[in-house]
């Protein structure tokens, strides 16, 4: 359904996302302490943390929308924000943004063609149908409700090819059918070999991943397996790894 893989002829680097000692400060306030993280190709990762923990900052740095104060980020072997990185990475932000003067269908065409996709119509129709907004294709997405905007943003994120998908709080505002549709799209992307990193607290997604990364107050406090993990406790506790080990014992 979605064009999840870019047809790359050159040998693909094994690391989809390489975050090396990245920190970010806004004026005097640090948003992200030095964080290092590697995501291999084809992995599905849940990034979790409470409000202000640095999830969105990390995602925006990886997407090239923010510049790190220190450190480097590589996307499929290219510096984040560079043209090859932008070609490989699809970012669905927590706040959807649209043009005032384009319909949803025109948005789909524009984004697809900006990424060099000529045969986009069938994919767009499938995506919108899957998300249940095909009948709204000719409407202006800027006037949609929060949930419909979110669905539109998801459709735009999937209309283009990508190797790495970064999604920030995608389940917020979605109804149950929207959540199901998104979960299917994420699974389909993974099945196609794309790397998926989702910042969320949505248990239905967290239960499908093998790896969880937890941020708290800008620091990476847990990076490991997802099995048997109590997500809420992970976010709250001072030493989630220790707590988890204790529980296992």
């Amino acid at each position, binding site marked *: 359904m979605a064009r999840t893989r870019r047809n790359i002829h050159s040998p693909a680097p094994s690391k989809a996302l390489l975050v090396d000692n990245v920190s970010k400060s806004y004026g005097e306030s640090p948003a992200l302490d030095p964080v290092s993280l590697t995501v291999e190709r084809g992995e599905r990762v849940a990034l979790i943390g409470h409000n202000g923990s640095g999830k969105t900052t990390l995602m925006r740095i990886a997407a090239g929308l923010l510049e790190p104060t220190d450190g480097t980020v590589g996307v499929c072997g290219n510096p984040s*924000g560079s043209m090859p990185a*932008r070609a490989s990475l699809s970012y669905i932000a927590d706040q959807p*943004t649209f043009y005032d*003067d*384009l319909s949803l269908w*025109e948005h789909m065409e*524009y984004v697809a063609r*900006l*990424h*060099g996709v000529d045969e986009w119509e069938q994919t767009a129709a499938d995506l919108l149908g899957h998300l249940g907004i095909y009948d709204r294709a000719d409407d202006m997405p800027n006037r949609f409700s929060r949930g419909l905007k979110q669905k539109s943003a998801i459709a735009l994120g999937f209309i283009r090819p990508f190797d790495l998908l970064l999604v920030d709080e995608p389940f917020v505002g979605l109804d149950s059918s929207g959540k199901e549709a998104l979960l299917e799209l994420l699974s389909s992307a993974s099945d196609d070999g794309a790397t998926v990193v989702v910042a969320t607290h949505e248990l239905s997604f967290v239960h499908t991943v093998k790896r969880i990364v937890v941020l708290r107050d800008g620091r990476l406090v847990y990076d490991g397996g997802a099995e048997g993990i109590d997500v809420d406790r992970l976010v709250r506790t001072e030493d989630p790894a220790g707590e988890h080990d204790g529980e296992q014992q």
Partner: protein
Amino acid sequence: MNSATVGIDALHAMRRERRRHRVADMEWYEALYRVYLAALIGGGAILYLSDLVTDSPLNAEQIRNLQAHTPHAVGLVVAVAVFMGLRSGANGGPLAVEDAEVRHVLMSPIDHGSALRHPAIQRLRTFMFSGAIAGGVANQLLGRRVPDAKAGLVAFALWGAVAGAIAGALFVISALLAHGLAVSRWLVTSCASALVAWQTAVTFGDSDIAGPFDFVGSMSMWWLRWSPIDLVGVSTVCALAFVGLRVTGRFSMEALARRSALVSQLKFAVTLQDIRTVVLLRRQLSQEYMRVKPWAKLPRVLKKDVVVARGLRSIMHFPARRLFRMAVFSVGSALALVTVWHGTTPMVVAAGLLLFVMGLDAVEPLSQEVDQPDRTDALPWERALLMTKHLVVPALVVVPFVVVGVAAAFVREPSISTIGYGFLIGFPAAWGGVAGAAVNAVKGAPDPVGGATEGLALPPEVSGMGTVLRAVWPPVISIVSCLPVIAVRETVSNGTQPVGAAVRSAGAVMIVLALVAGWVRQRDHIHAWFRNAQKQSALSSSQRTEGS
């Protein structure tokens, strides 16, 4: 054809399509009506200002001074524009693309230079056009004061427009370069300050050294003399424009994303004439944050009154750049008032507006209070009394800036009487700036009794005029507060003792300011009374209808 080329083709095609949409959706009658209104009001204003200055032709010595100093003085204006441009570039300017453009276009694999060059050219064009209008108007105003000029007013306007366009271009170009070359903010500020200092030194010092932007001022005088060396400067500007447009591809995505969100809000606020929101967004755009650590702790004696203490605490958190900016506004208004003293009456508007903008910074504690209507309504205080007490701190805060302004006026006009009249005229003028800004802040506060207010009782035509007056009268208060300088000037030209006129006119301004304070105190009562009268009128009207 690679994907990047395909993407650029899609970008161009979609831009064409969107332009076509915009043109198709345009309400032509509405647009023409707006042009008509702008031409009527703008043309009327220019004619009015022109009439104001024709009554004072320059004498021979003044014309000699004009010829000697215009290149430096205009160059100083351009230096300030370049300063602002460089700072804007260091803060992520001058472009503000749509939020969706950042998300969808700039995050796609197409060359950023190709995507951003078009908006950069648009920005360049807009500033050159605005500069040309301003320069043309200014030079033709000058032309009216030059008796027996061989050139016609059209030549004055033409060369003024050329100089203004170059000044506008330099603003944008310097911003493009500072942003594209990722020059650090401290380096940009240092270089920009050095350029302004150089130009200031040649403007006010007796030196034969040319200033870096003298060529712009010199071009504004091509109605008198043609100087081929100025073309070197123009060529340099063209070369810099070329480089500036080339480096747009190196713009920071972070800065573009930040500005895209803020600028759309800024435009909306401007549409609503919401000056407070414009000020707040402007500060966010330039990343101007309050100091975390206050400049000083308040002594116990100043903490006695809770409102005054709150206001002073706010001032103690002012960042250095805001204090510096207030000082610059004060100096600018002082120099404008000196120019008024020398006969250029319209500069009183510039002086008033500068003090109004300075006042917007000074009334920050009051504005913060107005920004939190739920909080103020929950206090066991009469809101109007709270607002009135908040006027005390801004009135005190501007005192040192008056001293700075008088010092600047003394440098320009070194005479002991400058100090005396400076303080006599300067204090009411500065407080007028505070009063205008306070009115602007308070009138934006929500009405605690609720409901729409005065507009309801008025027919639509008058209501529209009322909206304009509501927007205009805060800066008008600031401008009116600067008028004593004209009274003093006229008294001197009539050969009478100016002290009396200065005291009387300053006193009149103080009465106006007292009325403004009274308005702040009684505003809610006045509105409640007005609403009550409306209800009574509606009630009696319905009773009459039932009776008949």
